[in-house]
């Protein structure tokens, strides 16, 4: 069965059901420092980058899960591209060198 593009169906999606960001979107990784273990390394917090891929399907938010909150809740998860020069202003390598890292939507801010 072939469906019409989503928007033509008039379907309303639940909050958080669709990814908030898409490939090419400019983002900033939140500069939060909550106590505890989080899967967003400190060195990328506050850094700017770009969404490369929306990783499908949404994944269980293991950070919340790890603290026993919202167990089983799925969140959108993205592959983020960050230039090395953004991570370290004194980066010695080529300007085109970069990092790829997966980050949950809850850590992303639109730029």
């Amino acid at each position, binding site marked *: 069965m072939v469906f019409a593009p989503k928007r033509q169906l008039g379907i309303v999606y639940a909050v958080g059901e669709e990814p908030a960001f898409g490939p090419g979107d400019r983002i900033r990784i939140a500069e939060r420092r909550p106590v505890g273990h989080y899967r967003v390394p400190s060195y990328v917090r506050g850094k700017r980058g770009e969404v490369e891929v929306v990783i499908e399907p949404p994944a269980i938010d293991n950070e919340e899960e790890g603290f026993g909150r919202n167990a089983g809740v799925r969140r959108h998860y993205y592959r983020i591209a960050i230039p090395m020069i953004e991570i370290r202003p004194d980066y010695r390598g080529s300007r085109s060198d970069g*990092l790829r890292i997966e980050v949950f939507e809850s850590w992303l801010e639109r730029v």
Partner: protein
Amino acid sequence: MSQTLHDHDHAHDHPAIEQAARPGYYEMLETAVRELLVEKKLIAADEIRRQIEVLDSRTPALGARIVARAWVDPDFRARLLADGRAACEECGISFYDDTSLIVVENTDKIHNLIVCTLCSCYPRPVLGLPPDWYKLKPYRARAVSDPRAVLAEFGTIIPDNIEVRVHDSTAMVRYLVLPKRPEGTENYAEEQLAALVTRDTMIGVAPAQIQGSAS
């Protein structure tokens, strides 16, 4: 450690293998937690042994077969790059840890390197246990701050016109590098190709090369 030699029937003598030091804090903690879990029947001793067997059955030889297949079969290569896990599963490699796998391809323009800065995330279903250096802080910190220097220490010099792309595994995604097929291997059979693919080539710290060649 005792230096006394014992009688045994293999070819060389060595000091008796014995445990001299007390187990460390974490070793004792692990034993205590494991024994409690078994006692409470939450897991069985046999399940732990089985899981160790699962881990021991995964070695870089599996990854090497995947890479060699991708080198000789363009359709498989396309499937591997589109969905690493599905392509490996197609070859019978199970993902017992329910991770997904992104396969990143080294080309004339991009060199990929894998790290887990937070701990030791590694494509274990395909490569087995990571090497010790992969888990140590110097590699983990420097791979994302000075990757070209790290690569150079492995003997891998990347020209400036090639982009170095570092992949930091943080939670559910694992990476595998698809190295470049070495030149001069056009007539190699798949099995011969697999022999050129080492663990380090699939982490991205070294290129695949014909043994004995230094390029």
